[in-house]
């Protein structure tokens, strides 16, 4: 019953979030701030993780295809498909759940326990929309760029690691990443990250917005935001893969 209670409450919150903004220019400025805070500030962590992820995938693929009958360009092809199909969307989303999910939940949760949200409500501001909508829009707009960055950096990382380890030549790696390339994989990945980031921002906002108590509860809300966002990312990963690739 508790699950249905929270799902119902979540959709009621979304109903308030997606209402007509009071002042468009104020929301526009807030959205730009959120693009900076949630998106641009996440580029560093996404790049670092992607470069190592690409490197490890390439080396692992190389050791798993050590067979004279298999051409070495398969290393590039395998790394490319793994990065495009799964790592640059799902793994990046899980990283973002930790970074922006906890940030959103603790920010909104702190505003709740310090009565800042009450102050907004007293003024006649739709606090749910004012606080959450710019975060959702800003993150959803910027997330595809993070995924594209992850793809580029991940594949580049694979090339550096593969050639440095001597498991693949530059020519073979480049041939492999171009071989039988299906551009739909990128579209599929971008659709996934958009859905995942929507889930992260709304679930984290829900936990932050419904915090009550003190700093301990803010911490709990932050933890719940990360855990629940991660679970829903994995669940929707399965659903979207079935819908988009079958």
């Amino acid at each position, binding site marked *: 019953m508790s699950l249905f209670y929270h799902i119902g409450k979540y959709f009621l919150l979304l109903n308030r979030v997606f209402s007509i903004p*009071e*002042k468009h220019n*104020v929301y526009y400025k807030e959205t730009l701030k959120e693009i900076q805070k949630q998106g641009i500030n996440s580029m560093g962590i996404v790049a670092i993780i992607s470069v190592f992820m690409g490197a490890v995938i390439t080396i692992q693929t190389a050791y798993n295809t050590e067979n004279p009958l298999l051409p070495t360009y398969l290393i590039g092809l395998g790394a490319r498909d793994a990065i495009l199909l799964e790592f640059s969307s799902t793994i990046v989303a899980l990283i973002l759940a930790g970074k922006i999910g906890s940030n959103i939940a603790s920010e909104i949760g*702190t*505003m709740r326990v*310090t*009565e*800042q949200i*009450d*102050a907004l*409500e*007293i*003024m*006649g*501001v*739709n606090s749910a929309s004012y606080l959450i909508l710019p975060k959702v829009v800003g993150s959803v707009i910027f997330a595809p760029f993070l995924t594209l960055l992850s793809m580029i950096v991940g594949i580049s990382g694979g090339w550096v690691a593969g050639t440095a380890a001597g498991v693949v030549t530059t020519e073979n790696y480049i041939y492999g990443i171009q071989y039988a390339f299906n551009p739909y994989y990128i579209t599929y990945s971008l659709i996934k990250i958009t859905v995942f980031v929507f889930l992260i921002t709304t679930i984290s906002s829900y936990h932050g917005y419904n915090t009550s108590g003190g700093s301990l509860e803010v911490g709990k809300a932050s933890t719940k935001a990360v855990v629940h966002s991660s679970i829903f990312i994995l669940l929707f990963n399965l659903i979207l893969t079935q819908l988009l690739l079958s």
Partner: protein
Amino acid sequence: MIEVKDISKSFENTKVLNEVNVLFEKGKTNLIIGQSGSGKTVLLKSIVGLHQVDKGQIIFDNIVFNELNFKDKKEMRKQIGMLFQGGALFDSSSVEENVRYPLDMFTNLSLSDKQDRVNECLKRVNLINANKFYPAEISGGMQKRVAIARAIALNPKYLFCDEPNSGLDPQTAILIDNLIKEITEEYNMTTIVNTHDMNSVMEIGDKVVFIYKGEKWWEGTKEGIFDTENNELNNFIFASTLSRKIKDLKKGG
């Protein structure tokens, strides 16, 4: 003028307010006093609509506020200013951004007009050259003054203050009290202050309402407190040795 008629409020099975009737007068500083847990914060939050009452009416100058629809209630809220216990300033905004916030949201003033109004409000609360500071960089007393400046930015008709003196030293507390009283008279607002600070009662209490166990136990003026035979009020007000001595002195001469 704000009239509270027969309001009751429960949280699950606990009755917090029981058929409270009070009239808060315009141009006066109306104080709600009571022990911690007596229901005074719930009363204040019910009046401003942060809590939905179970029954009764809250009437703001002939408008039944708690029966308005969402849209009208939202419009009405623009006439309400509130000072929260902790200030409730937006941490990520500077002092002037905090004060400008209601102007950004609800007016179409030009940037320079908004800036003029911000400076005017900050000057009114005696805060000069603090515009660029962030809430974390200023003292508790200054935060309260910024919160008052933000509350009056839209020239509200009603001002609510939830324990404005909590966490302040006595001297700063008196400054904040006097500021609230001056602003109430200057803007001819209906002000309701929720407090358990007896200095506030004596300094600014034009009208005092004593809440005890969720019910209105007593109401009157600050002068009337010394003459009341109400035991619960006497126990609350004259709990300290100092206040009892003051009462004895008053009675003596």
